[in-house]
């Protein structure tokens, strides 16, 4: 961790306390850091703990969930124990967030302009006329040519891709050092996906932000990420640079994910699939959490969960196959 590190998550544990005294370990000891200008991709299936990780960073975990342990340093300051009131000064100002569902992420009763101005007035203490000018600039920045008119429009008049652009404008309005994008393109069609991701990338360079990109689309990872964390069962199972991950994947789960992608070079009838689904977070197996689905499962895997061990420089794997 250097002085400029935007976000450093250390030993984060977010548990959900279920009714019948069961504990769902949705995020179980996760460490990572993001530097300015870096895009870190968080990859995994549904239920692997990606979104809970991002909500933990925003401190938006609702009951019965709780951040049990760990530290989250945002621009060098630990935010895990901050009061709700102090967190409202950080959300939107030091971290911006983009959501999966642009169709419902904007409040239908306010104009687009109102919603951008709300952030600016809250965090930048701008007067409404200054905030309005800034909102127009922001809309132009995210690609609305007629921003002066767009500002007066209501969300129902915009398409999904346009709404996601507005969400980006809101997220970057206060020039945060960290942008969390939680599956920002899942609800959009492919051509719009590329535009939105290009826009996020452009904003990243412009404001020198760190980006936490949560996705289950490895194509998106290949195009936009610098480093990749593969999550499974609330833990990081492999951490590598993008090149290393695609050229030399180690963990059986990562291999499984890559095998399930169609390839342009090879003709195949059926795509590979990983058998089964992620076990629910309160019923993880005793040993390695992937052991129930792993093709290389050994006796050892059923008893002990392996540690995340360095394989080469900057490449870590959590698997008994590598020692």
């Amino acid at each position, binding site marked *: 961790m250097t002085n400029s590190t935007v976000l450093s998550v250390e030993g984060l544990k977010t548990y959900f306390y279920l009714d019948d005294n069961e504990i769902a370990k949705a995020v179980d000891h996760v460490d990572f850091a993001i530097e300015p200008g870096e895009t870190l991709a968080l990859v995994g299936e549904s239920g692997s703990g990606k979104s809970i990780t991002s909500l933990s960073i*925003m401190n*938006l975990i609702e*009951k019965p969930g709780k951040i049990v342990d760990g530290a989250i340093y945002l621009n060098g300051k630990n935010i895990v124990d901050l009061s*709700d*009131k102090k*967190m*409202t*000064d*950080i*959300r*939107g*100002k030091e971290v*911006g*967030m983009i*959501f*999966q*569902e642009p169709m*419902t*992420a*904007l*409040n*239908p*009763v*306010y*104009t687009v302009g109102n919603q951008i101005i*709300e*952030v600016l007035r*809250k*965090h930048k203490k701008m007067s409404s006329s200054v905030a309005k000018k800034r909102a127009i600039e922001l809309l132009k920045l995210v690609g609305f040519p007629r921003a002066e*008119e767009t500002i*007066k*429009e*209501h969300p*129902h*008049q915009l398409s999904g891709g346009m709404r996601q652009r507005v*969400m980006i404008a*809101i997220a970057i309005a206060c020039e945060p050092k960290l942008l969390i994008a939680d599956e920002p393109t899942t609800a959009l069609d492919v051509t719009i996906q590329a535009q939105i991701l290009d826009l996020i990338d452009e904003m990243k360079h412009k404001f020198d932000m760190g980006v936490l990109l949560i996705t289950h689309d490895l194509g998106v990872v290949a195009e936009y990420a610098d480093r990749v964390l593969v999550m499974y069962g609330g833990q990081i199972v492999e951490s590598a640079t993008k090149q290393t991950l695609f050229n030399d994947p180690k963990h059986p789960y990562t291999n499984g994910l890559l095998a399930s992608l169609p390839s342009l070079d090879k003709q195949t009838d059926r795509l590979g699939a990983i058998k089964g689904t992620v076990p629910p977070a309160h019923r993880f197996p005793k040993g390695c959490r992937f052991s129930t689905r792993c093709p290389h499962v050994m006796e050892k895997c059923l008893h002990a969960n392996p540690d995340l061990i360095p394989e080469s420089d900057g490449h870590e794997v959590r698997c008994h196959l590598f020692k």
Partner: protein
Amino acid sequence: MQQLNAQETPSVEPIRPPEGQEPSKNKASKSPFQLAFARFRKNKLAIVGIVILVSIVLISVFADLLATHDPTKSNLLLIENGPSSEHILGTDGSGRDNFSRLLYGSRISLIVGFSAMIFTLMIGTTLGSIAGYYGGKIDSFIMRLTDLMQALPFFVLALTIISIVPEITIALFVTIIALTSWPNLTRIIRGTFLSLREQEFMLGAKAIGASDFRIIFKHFIPNAIGPITVNATLMMAQMIIFESGLSFVGMGIPQPTPTWGNMLSQAQNIRILRNHPEAWIPAGLGIFLTVLAINFIGDGLRDAFDPKSNRR
């Protein structure tokens, strides 16, 4: 079917203006409220309701000018007189002018209905919002409280309070009605909040650092304004009926204050019921028209805020 579709599209496909409506001349886009208002304006029954209600409001405001006599001044020489040029609707059992009492009576009915509605709305919206937003223990506590209130028979409770209190003023009367009728509204608003909570823009509002207070008042309530307005309107009609009912049985606003309920209570006397219909029918009609008008408006608002409930 086609008409139904045309009514449904505006919220989804904004480029096409709603059927029968000219594209707006100014560039500013229509907010969901403006769209609802445009739908409301096309509802003829609701417009009739508005016209009736506005006339009654005007009558009550200008009762001083329209009335021919002092509504509380009795004249013991003129008891239970029939219509005459001096007293158009005759006089009541204490020799007070029925026509003037009818005009002033609208004032009491509207004031009681409106202020009881506002009061109930304040209690209901606050408690409902808190319960729906925070959930958990706070929610359970408020909901058990409403259960408790709803388990008590409303009418009997109100009657008991009224009979204990020695002097009933309008303010006290309104307070009693409001304190006994908030649970229904609380439940409705809590329900609306629970469904809005799951919308992603609530998370979005939190993610930009909005405080709880701001989220409730700036993001929740404007989105719940449809159900709130509709229920408030229908509640007002109910409050007016309730006031009349209590006054009719002599437990409402005490004499000599003129209210429609008080005037109706004369009809308990068989002599007046048979021989002097002009003394009580107009008051009954007043209540009837007011409540009908408000209900028309309430229905119109409901259709306007929820295009899916279109049954025309």
